């Protein structure tokens, strides 16, 4: 009993005891890749069914088509980890794009346009976070449903119901062009993914969001700035919507109040397919990205295969369901293998 009361820093002596067998380890590692495994299965199926699917050109298309969902899904993941939900992101994309387009009509400055879009996203996110925290609301569903409605109305009103064409070159570059077959937007997604990975796994803030999601009351007692953490995830989610607006606006060279419709459902589905839990405290960025890609690949493959428009929603629904169910089975298998490994030891 020599418990130091200062911050303990000395390293433990010797490695922790290991009781694991090396036998079924490979199988276990494979099973653990989880959603990625299913993405691979979907890609293989698509390649088998359509000869053009696995061409660089089409993969470029898939990536470009998925960039917006991917960005929104990463932000949604942060929100969901804290037990929240952000329904407003789709409308925010529309509002930010409209504000950007109007800014471009007023002043021809690319910097200002980009700032306007990011700023709009930030503003909506801030409203969500602050209303949730200061309003002591029990759940973010309703605030973000309200801002969904308000942002949609504002976008329509500002735009006069019309799309406004024209975006600065840099926005068009980001959203609409590629290096070879690799879209610029994919590079942006990759950069953001690295950033979010850093945030969630290496920074104190990342710890905090998992703590808040795991036990909000405990987090408060541990003097974690719960309110600040909550506001920050909604602000980031708004910012992500601003970035998504830049990509969409660049891709379409316009800002329109119809952008981003129902994008929030895609984002949430991606996060859930990636194994996160609505009960908070669980989920990873990499898997959210895999979920987004899964949705993108399925949509693309159905277009390539010319699946009837009426049938497409049916296929998507079924595939989503299968993906989640496979994840459940995968988890059960993982536990089974762990036991086998322990027995083998």
């Amino acid at each position, binding site marked *: 009993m020599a418990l130091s009361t200062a911050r303990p820093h000395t390293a433990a002596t010797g490695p922790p005891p290991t009781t694991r067998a090396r036998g079924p380890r490979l199988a276990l590692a494979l099973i653990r890749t989880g959603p990625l495994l299913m993405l691979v299965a979907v890609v293989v199926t698509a390649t088998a069914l359509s000869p053009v699917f696995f061409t660089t050109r089409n993969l470029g298309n898939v990536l470009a088509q998925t960039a917006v969902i991917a960005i929104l899904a990463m932000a949604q993941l942060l929100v969901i980890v804290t037990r929240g939900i952000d329904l407003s992101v789709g409308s925010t994309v529309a509002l930010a794009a409209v504000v950007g387009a109007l800014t471009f009509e007023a002043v021809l400055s690319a910097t200002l346009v980009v700032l306007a879009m990011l700023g709009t996203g930030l503003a909506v996110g801030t409203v969500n976070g602050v209303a949730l925290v200061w309003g002591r609301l029990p759940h973010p569903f309703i605030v973000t449903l309200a801002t969904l409605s308000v942002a949609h109305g504002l976008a329509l009103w500002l735009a006069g119901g*019309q799309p406004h064409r024209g975006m600065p070159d840099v926005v068009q570059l980001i959203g609409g062009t590629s290096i070879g077959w690799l879209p610029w937007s994919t590079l942006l997604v990759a950069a953001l993914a690295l950033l979010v990975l850093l945030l969630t796994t290496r920074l104190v803030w990342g710890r905090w969001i998992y703590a808040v999601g795991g036990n909000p009351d405990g987090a408060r007692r541990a003097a974690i700035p719960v309110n600040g953490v909550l506001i920050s995830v909604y602000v980031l989610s708004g910012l992500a919507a601003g970035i998504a607006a830049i990509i969409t606006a660049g891709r379409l060279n316009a800002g329109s109040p119809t952008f981003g419709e129902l994008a929030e459902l895609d984002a949430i589905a991606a996060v859930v397919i990636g194994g996160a839990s609505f009960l908070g405290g669980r989920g990873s960025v990499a898997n959210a990205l895999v979920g987004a890609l899964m949705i993108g690949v399925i949509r693309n493959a159905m*277009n390539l295969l010319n699946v009837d428009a009426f049938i497409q929603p049916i296929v998507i629904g079924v595939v989503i369901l299968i993906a989640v169910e496979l994840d459940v089975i995968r988890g059960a298998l993982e536990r089974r293998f762990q036991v086998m490994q322990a027995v083998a030891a």
Partner: protein
Amino acid sequence: GDSGGGSDKAAGGGAIKVGLITKFPVDFYDTMVDAVKQYDAAHADVEVVYGQGKSGTDDEGEIAIIENMITQGVKAIAITPTSPNVQGALDKAVKAGIKVVLIDNDIPGWSGKSSVVATDNLAGGKLAGQWLAKQLPAGSTIAILQGRLGNPSLDDRVKGLKEGLAGAAKVVAEPATDCDETKGLNAAQDILTANPDVAAIYGACGPPITGALQAVKAAGKKPVVVGFDASPDEIKAIESGTQAASVAQFPAKMGSLGIETAVAAAKGETVKPAVDTGTEMVTKDNVAKFK
């Protein structure tokens, strides 16, 4: 034939591959697609690839389809663009040597198109406005059921109507209905409650007008009801006298002329830059020929 596999034409045989992209699955576009399928069946040297979006504002969906058609190597695309937002993707197609023919609505100011085969919605709206101006006594009021906010062709129908009315009636309400029947009924109920004397109701699309007719029937009023699209439901209502008129478009004509133009452009022939498929007021007098 259908590109879905069981085609009677050998894929990749000498046939010219062209794409047809329509907005979303409703009667109007189905009529168009049916006309194109007829054309397809009758022309052995043409193979049509079909694609359809999820809704009237599904820009992203259409763009994905365009990109995929480029990948599939079509020679021409005939498309009903959801909005000018698909222009970027169409530019890519043009750059890849694909001819683009716009059907149903234009993308104003875009120079990449080979031709536009369309109803002039503004003109159609004007037609309805002028017709209504003649029917209504001076000082009348009118309510407008808008379509989906942010959709240019639907907005044009409202703009055109106001131009055509030229002040002959005062607009007392113009709620959005998302072209949804239930919302049309709810809005019409409320309009008739707030403005029992409204002389006319105009709808920018078919379904809300069909819904509004229910409200009119229940309220026991007789406003002049005018729609746009002349959907099968509207035709029946005009026959039975509950609806006064509707602006008809010609989707089948759009489809067949559109695909003809696209094939011609793909073959390198010169095509007319604009093909108007026209509009016409459907009233009790001429409804028979629209059935």
